[in-house]
């Protein structure tokens, strides 16, 4: 059984159709990346999963239950960290962590102490004085101190420095090792690449791509930098090469993954001095999906 199963989910606020058709399945025990640009519908989807917002239509199963009707029972088994944590200005960080943990149904005090050390958070400060990063830490410490089957993170590391980002990644890896399920919404793509087994890409309220990173990489292009002994102009005649730039006998271009054989034949016949191949990155995948939107906007 999947931890999260969403079919044909829609959500409208009045005339604004924020979610048009969301289909998402997160398998038990996997770390699932949920990526997309601002305003694509990531947070709305997550808030529907938490029973904070009500769906307009569609089917959702969360840990086998209905996220709206069974919210309280389901919340025993999940923790959530939002991307922009707002705290009570008059409560200290320590009080907030304890309160949130107790409202979840109890937290592991030892684990909390370790996490406070790891994240270097001073729990005696009033929440009013915390920076954005420190507010995120309060939510993260509280979440990782709790026992849960499902961890939902909505851009959890916004405002964290790279050191803390790494500690977050360690915590997620540990959780994964323990066989728990994680849904990680993010637009820090390196974070997703490091952690996620599978990725779903959302665009304008629709899931446009789902798969393992390898599967997704297959959809995109590698970049080749090559220096040849003689001219390799025939590259341009191949159908799978794109954006060739030339400087003497140095070439830089991207290729579709199925064109690799043909390209190599041409290069070999021209004689290779040096060559590097950059694997397709999530960034490029991202740009491939959204670059179009940006271009359209520029034209308008």
């Amino acid at each position, binding site marked *: 059984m999947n931890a999260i199963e969403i079919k044909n989910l829609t959500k409208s606020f009045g005339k604004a159709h924020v979610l048009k058709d969301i289909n998402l399945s997160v398998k038990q025990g996997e770390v699932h990346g949920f990526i997309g640009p601002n305003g694509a519908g990531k947070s709305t989807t997550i808030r529907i999963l938490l029973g*904070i*917002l009500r769906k307009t239509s569609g089917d959702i199963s969360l840990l086998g239950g209905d996220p709206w009707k069974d919210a309280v029972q389901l*919340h025993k088994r999940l923790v959530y960290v939002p991307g*922009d*944590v*707002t705290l009570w200005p008059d409560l200290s960080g320590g*009080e907030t962590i304890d309160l949130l943990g107790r409202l*979840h149904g109890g937290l592991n005090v030892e684990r909390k102490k370790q996490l406070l050390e790891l994240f270097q958070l001073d*729990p005696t*400060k009033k929440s009013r004085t915390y920076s954005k990063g420190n507010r995120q830490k309060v939510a993260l410490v509280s979440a990782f101190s709790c026992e849960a089957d499902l961890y939902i993170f909505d851009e959890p590391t916004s405002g964290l420095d790279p050191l803390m980002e790494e500690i977050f990644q360690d915590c997620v890896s540990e959780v994964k090792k323990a066989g728990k399920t994680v849904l990680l919404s993010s637009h820090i793509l390196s974070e997703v690449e490091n952690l996620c087994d599978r990725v779903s890409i959302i665009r304008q309220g629709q899931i446009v791509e789902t798969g393992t990173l390898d599967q997704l990489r297959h959809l995109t292009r590698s970049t080749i930098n090559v220096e040849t002994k003689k001219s390799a102009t025939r590259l341009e005649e191949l159908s799978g090469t794109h954006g060739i730039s030339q400087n003497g006998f140095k070439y830089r271009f991207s290729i579709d993954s199925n064109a690799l054989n043909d390209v190599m034949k041409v290069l070999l016949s021209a004689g290779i001095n040096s060559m590097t191949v950059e694997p397709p990155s999530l960034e490029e995948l991202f740009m491939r999906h959204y670059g179009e939107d940006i271009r359209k906007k520029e034209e308008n």
Partner: protein
Amino acid sequence: MNNKNFAGTGILFKLFLHRDRFLLPIWIFLPVVLILIVASTFSSMGGEGLENVLLDFDNDPLVSAILGPVMSFDLTGAIVWRGTSQIALTLGLGSLFTLIRHTRVDEETGRSELIRSYVTGTYASLTAALTLTIIGNLIAGILIAITIIFLGGSITSSLLYAITMVTIGCFFAGISGVAVQLRESSGSARGISITVLGLGILLSILNNTVGADSFLNWITPMAWQRLTQPFAGDNWIYLIYFIIICALPIIISYVLTARRDLGEGIFIPRSGPKEASPRFSSPLALAWRLKKKNFFGWIIATVLYIVVFAAFSPSLSKTEGMSGWLSNLGGTNWVEDMELGYVFISIGIYLMALFVGIYAITTVFRLKKEENEGRIEILLDKQVSRTKLMRSHLIVAYLFSATLLLVMGIAGGLAYGIASGDLGGNFGVIFSMSVSKIPPVWIFVGLSALLYGLFPRISEFSWVIWISCSILELTWEAKLIDWSLMSISPYAYAHYTIQITELPYLSLFLLIVISLLFTTIGLLGFKNRNIQTKA
């Protein structure tokens, strides 16, 4: 003085003015409305014989204990006598909210940081906010003067009165100017400023009970019209004193601004406990914690207020010479039925109960604030149902508002009992007067819960209802409406003209039932609606 410290003041002033384009007119125009209400009330009461009506009031020990002696016996005198405290309260509150909104609130939300990264000086925000507040007061003053001149006041006296009122507003602008420097939260600044305002009102009432010619005239701005005496001698010279008193806090606020960092207060923030106490583990505990400070503020204010009222009541009410207006309120002869000593205190308790209605509404709307600021999102993902969350805040609203009235009953009963020398005979009556106001106050808890749960966008309508009830009270007292209309207000069922032995228990019980019904509907609405979240 260095010019660069004031860079950007003009632009900020325009920004603040734009942000306040709807709020500012409210407190600027309200004094005019108040003057017109007072004028129409007295015109309807006195007509040709207004002088006699005022003489009657002036001889009434009870009325003059609350409002002090009348200074001139015509319509303008009536306006000064009856309207000053409301005008001072309006301008005081308007000034302090406006100033805090554009200084500490901006710092708290981080807007000031953005502003200060542009070409703006240390004093720019404070100066722009002070300018806006003072200009607001000046316009209010001009409107006050025009209104009174229109009603037949002399130009010079009307101006003097208006300027006196303007200085009161400016004084509280200065006070809140200092208050915002002290701590890093706007709530604390508001608390300090409102405390000073409340103290001013309390001292002015105290001043009135001793005949309004004590040194308190100098201390509390709420009694400044007793110094300048517009329409009754016109002592312009005191304005110099007022201006000095207004300038002092303003100067202090500039000195303090220069000495602190942006976003910080003069006092270093206290650190909190490393761990939460074991009992801090439910939405109810959180709701209690969030409202605790404010609640204790109300308790202190209520106790101070009622003790002053109760201590003077027994001696005042027993004296002869009650005015016809008071003993014949709204066409009743309630004073004949009520034991004379209770007349004064029953009005005092009633007035405070009206204000506890405000407390009830704000306490329910604290949940709305939590929702708007995105803090209930991290509660609803826990084992906290919507019903449980809202219920926690409502329990606190019900309990705290009732506790305020209980405490007022106990403190008032004790003070009155001791002052009258008959604690056993009086305590129960005073206590019941206060406690009988619980059902009408609870109506406002229920109403606010209903609106917030079902229609969060128009939940502010609760305030309209509260204001309507206050206006009903005023118009009924002025005999403009009769009791059948007055009884729309829930407060009518525990009205100060009703004797304790004749309280309509069934109606009061029904008020509680209605309140609980409203609450239930509100809870159901909240359970089934979307939560407002940040994008």
